[in-house]
Structures are given as C-alpha cells and as structure tokens.
C-alpha cells in the first residue's frame, strides 16, 4: 500500500515534468534543429560521396577506338563525334576530361593527377597497339598482350569498413546524447533551483518526501528525453539511410539500441548530480556556479569515444575508461562498436555503474533534501548532509 502511494506520488511529479517539457518550445526546437543539422550533413556527405565514388568519366573524340578500349579498363568512356560536343560535355561536367584527336586533353579546371596518368598510359598502350598492328600483329592478340590482367585483391579485415561505420555512428550518437544530457541536466538544476528560490519546495515537502520529488523529476525528465532521443534517432537514421550514408542500417540500429541501453544509467547518474547541485543554490542565477564541476565530469566522459573514434579501440586507457562509472556510459558502447569487448568487462562496467548510482542516490538524495530548505548563498555539501540528518 505504502509502495503504491510512493509510486503514485512519483508518477504525479514525473507527469508534471513530462508535460512541462512537451509544452516547452525549446524542447521541440532542439529536436528539429538537431535532426535538420544531421539530415543536412548526411545530404552533403551523400552529394560529396556521389561525386568521388564512381570511376571518372573521359570523353573520346573521333575514331580513337584503341584509346577508348585502353581507357575502358580504368574509367567510363563516352564517345563524341567532334571536339565541340566534347567541350560541351566537359563544361556540363558529364565527363571529367575529354581526349581530342591530336592527343590534347580538355578539362574544366585542372586535370586530376591519377586521371592524367591513366590517360597517358592509355595513349601509350594505343600507340603500342597501332605500332604492333602496323608491323603485322593481329588486332585481338595485341590488345590482350598489352592489357594487364585485373588485380586479384584479398582483404584480411573485410569487417573494418563496417566497424568504422559502427564506431562513427556510435561516436556521433554519444555526442548527441551528451548534448541532450547536458540540456536535461541544466533543465533539472534550474527546475530545482526555481522550486527552491520561489519557496514552492516548502509546499511540496509538506506533501511529499524529498526523494519522491527527486525520483519523479529524474523519471519525468528522463521520459521526455527518451521521447526526444527516439524522435531524433528515427529522423536521423531515416535521413542517413535515405541519403545512402549508411551501408549497413541494421548495424547502425543495433549500435543505437546499445547506446540507449548505456545512456539510461549514465543519464540517471548525471541528472542526479545536476539535481543535487541545483538544490545547493538559493537563487537561479547561481546555478551555473554549482553545475561547473558536474559539467567537467560530464566532459570527461567524452574521452572514451574520442579514443575509440581515433582508432585506439584496443588502447588500455580506453579499456580503463570504459569501466569507470560516469565515463563508461559513453566509452563502452563506442568501444563495443569498434571492437570485440570481453563479456566480463561489459558486465563489470554495467555493474559498477549501477553500484555508483545506488550510492549516489543515497548520498545525493540526502544532500538534495538537506540543501532544499537551506538558504543564503551556496550551501556546502557537508552542511546540506548535516541538515538532512535533522
């Protein structure tokens, strides 16, 4: 019965926070702006990738079938009846370069060095074939003899590209979640300070316990943040798949799910710290002073993703960072995306995180309770703890 009453109170507090967030224009603005920025970056990536991805195209003018044949092994060849047509094609960027009858090469701005080498080699090959044929060789034989066989490539780590894509996805995801956590944290700290500075807290504490308030706030803001994350993830992944930036969308969805799994305890940890910080000030203007250390700690959690994205997935520093509570929420999922992580390390990191949350909620809850009814400047943590004892 008591537990049900507790849950009901937490639900009422959480519901107010959710409604407040969903009615907040800044909440929706951050969803729209982030999604739009991601979609734009994917669109740009798609356009740039489209430009440089396929083989270059070279126009060939007149009866240059030998040159065209020699070029075909490396580039796309388009044939034009005269120099004018080739010139138009170059200007319209239908081809990267055009080879004119006299051997002259026409480009829009400058000739890419690799393409230049390919054209020069094709011209040489064509010249050799023509010389050999003039000496009596049969056309088919000369072409075969002078065309090198295609390279046989064996990749030792075929998964590397996918792993890199996963790591990048995880890195970007962690950064987005980091920003979201920062905004939620600031929101909760300001909300707590507002309740304290406007003395509403006195009315509230006459009706509910401090831990009802704290838990309700964390749950409510967390639920609102999850709605935000879900919308952003759907929109961002949709845009990424739509623009063809992701080659393995299923892998990205798996990575996103894993990120979310680690985000939840990380969120609880940091948001509790922000709420406790908010309870230490008497005026909203002082919020920025007290959240500084929490900000710093949160910044530190970006170390892991930075190490993993830089390519140090097997780094021992990254291993340590991915196990430390407060840092592991960001480091572990990115590390897991980049490389195979022993299961015991995953389990240990999660267990340590949960243990840290349990301790934090116990101690932080007392600081929160003690801080709420103490006024005058910034309340010291020890003073708040002593206050909670009364």
């Amino acid at each position, binding site marked *: 019965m*008591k537990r049900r*009453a507790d849950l*009901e*109170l937490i639900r*009422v*507090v959480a519901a*107010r926070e959710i409604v407040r967030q969903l009615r907040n224009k800044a909440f929706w603005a951050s969803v729209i702006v982030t999604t739009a920025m991601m979609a734009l970056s994917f669109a740009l990536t798609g356009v740039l990738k489209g430009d440089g991805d396929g083989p270059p195209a070279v126009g060939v003018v007149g009866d240059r079938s030998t040159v065209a044949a020699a070029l075909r092994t490396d580039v796309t060849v388009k044939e034009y009846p005269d120099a004018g047509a080739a010139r138009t094609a170059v200007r319209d960027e239908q081809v990267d370069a055009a080879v004119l009858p006299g051997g002259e090469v026409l480009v829009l701005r400058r000739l890419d060095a690799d393409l230049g080498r390919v054209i020069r080699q094709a011209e040489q090959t064509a010249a050799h074939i023509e010389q050999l044929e003039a000496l009596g060789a049969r056309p088919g034989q000369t072409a075969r003899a002078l065309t090198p066989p295609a390279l046989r490539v064996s990749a030792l780590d075929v998964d590397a590209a996918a792993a890199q894509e996963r790591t990048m996805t995880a890195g970007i995801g962690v950064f987005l979640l980091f920003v979201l956590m920062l905004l939620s944290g600031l929101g909760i700290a300001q909300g707590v300070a*507002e*309740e304290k500075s*406007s*003395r*509403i*807290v*006195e*009315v*509230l*504490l*006459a*009706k*509910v*316990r401090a831990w009802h308030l704290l838990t309700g706030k964390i749950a409510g803001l967390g639920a609102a943040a999850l709605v935000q994350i879900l919308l952003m993830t759907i929109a961002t992944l949709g845009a990424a798949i739509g623009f063809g930036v992701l080659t393995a969308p299923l892998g990205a969805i798996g990575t996103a799910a894993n990120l979310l799994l680690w985000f939840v305890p990380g969120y609880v940890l940091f948001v509790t710290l922000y709420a406790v910080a908010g309870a230490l000030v008497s005026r909203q203007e002082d919020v920025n002073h007290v959240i500084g250390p929490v900000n710093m700690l949160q910044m530190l959690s970006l170390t892991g993703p930075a190490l993993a994205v830089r390519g140090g997935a097997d780094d021992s520093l990254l291993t340590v960072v991915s196990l430390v509570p407060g840092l592991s929420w960001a480091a572990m999922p990115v590390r897991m995306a980049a490389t195979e992580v022993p299961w015991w390390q995953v389990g240990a990191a999660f267990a340590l995180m949960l243990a840290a949350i349990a301790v934090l909620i116990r101690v932080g809850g007392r600081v929160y309770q003690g801080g709420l*009814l103490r006024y005058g400047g910034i309340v010291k943590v020890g003073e708040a703890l002593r206050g909670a004892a*009364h």
Partner: protein
Amino acid sequence: MLSFDGVRKSFGGRRVLDDLTFDVRPGELFGFCGANGAGKTTAMRIALGVVGADAGAVRWNGAEVDAHSRRLFGYMPEERGLYAKMTPLDQLVYFARLSGVRPREARRRAAEWIERLGVVAGPKDHVEKLSLGNQQKVQLIAALIHDPAVLVLDEPFSGLDPVAVDAMAGVLLQCAREGVPVVFSSHQLELVERLCHRVGILRGGRLVAEGTVSELRRAAGPSRVRISVRDVSPAWARSLTGTRVLAEEDGLTVLELESDRAAQDVLATAQAAGRVEFFGRQEAGLGDIFREAVGT
C-alpha cells in the same frame, strides 16, 4: 486535535523552540502570535515535517504526525511559493494530485475554488501574470483543495487588502465550522482578536500566554473602568479605596480596580458626588496583552 507536545528545536546552538506545548481543538481557530523570530514559522514547519524537531512531537488525534497523516494537512507557508510559468488551474490540480485527489475531482475542485474566491485570471494566464492578491488566493486554495483535516497557515493575511482579508477570514471560519482545527500566525492582532477562539503568544520559543482573549485579559491584570462625572471636584477619585487612578483628563478618569466589587463602589461614590455622564469597563486589547506578554 492537533497537539504540540514538548517540541524543541535549535539551529546552530541557538534555541528556537523550547518545550512548546499546546493543542488546537477540532473546529477551533487558534491564533499564533509572537514577535519576529519568536519561533512561529519553525513550529509550523515542524508540524508539516518540513523541518524535524530535536525533541518532542506533534500529534494528530493522539498519534505522532507522519508522512501519511501530513498529507491530510493543509499548509500555507509564510514565503509564498507557486510555479510562475503554470496556470493557476494546472498548479492547483498538481497540488491536489500530490495530496491524493483523483485527477477529475482535482480539476473540479480547483475550478470551483477559483470561482468561489474570485481569482481573476484568464484561462491561459500563468501565475506570474496575476496580481499579488490573486496569487495569495491561489496559495490559499492550494492549502484547501484536498479538504484538509487540519489547516496550518503562516501569515495568511499579510499583503491582503481589506476585501481579500474578509474573504480569507470567511474561508477560515467556514473551515472551523466544519470541524477543522485551524492554526494561523499573524501580526494583525485586531484580526486575531476578532477571529480566533483561542490565542497563543510565543516569546523566545516558549509559549508565554495561551487561552481565549478573555482569559488572557483576566490573566493580564486587574480590570479598568473609565468614568466621566460632572459637577465634582477634580480630584474626587483620589479618595476611593481599592482603586488606583491611572489617568485623569478632560473630566474622564481611568481607574484600575482591585476587584469587581470595587466597580460598584466607584459607581455609587460617583453618583453621590455628582452627575455621571459615562461609566464603562476599559477592555485591554490583544495588542496590550501581547506587548505585556512579550515584554515590550
């Protein structure tokens, strides 16, 4: 019945409440008076569990007040607190929900109280747009919306205009008539005297006087009479026995009496001496009693 039973509280070595003991009976309006810093707010905060007592207890119907029984209390703190960016209706529904009222019922009651107390606000107006008087009304509704079994109000009348004071007083009297024990603090002593069934005066954390205003008056000292007599010598009252002349001015004499019997003697003597124009008891006001009790 709400009972304070030997409540003690110190802040940083300074004793704020010292063995505070008094009862507020069902249907009683109890006025809590005291100079600033006497401990009124701390006592009320302890009753609501906002601050813990060092010793003693606050009881509700004999059982120590706990989180569950506290939810039946209505509380209006001295420092008014409302969410600036919420409408009065949403705010009141939220407070009612925290006291266990179902959502539909909470909405109905909030709308009813807003109407009853005449809170002037548009349906989408946030509290920050309301006048201070209207904010105060919303704050009172927050204390009443869950039909509290006990009402604890810290300075509910401060900052209200006379019309709003009457409205607030009407609500408190109505609550008392319904059997709710109501305790409120105030510096407006004439209001306390007019409304309250009983009064407690706090000094330095101790209750130095408690009772009905008449009881306090009796306890405050001998009764006084004012008498105006024409056609007598100016010093006619000096010869009276069992009395002391406190003031003589413009034919009006104020006498302190040693007993009620003396009043009759005074009147008889005055009538024999001249023409009595006025004779009446001079009641000590709560203000006089208060000043005497707190020693100013």
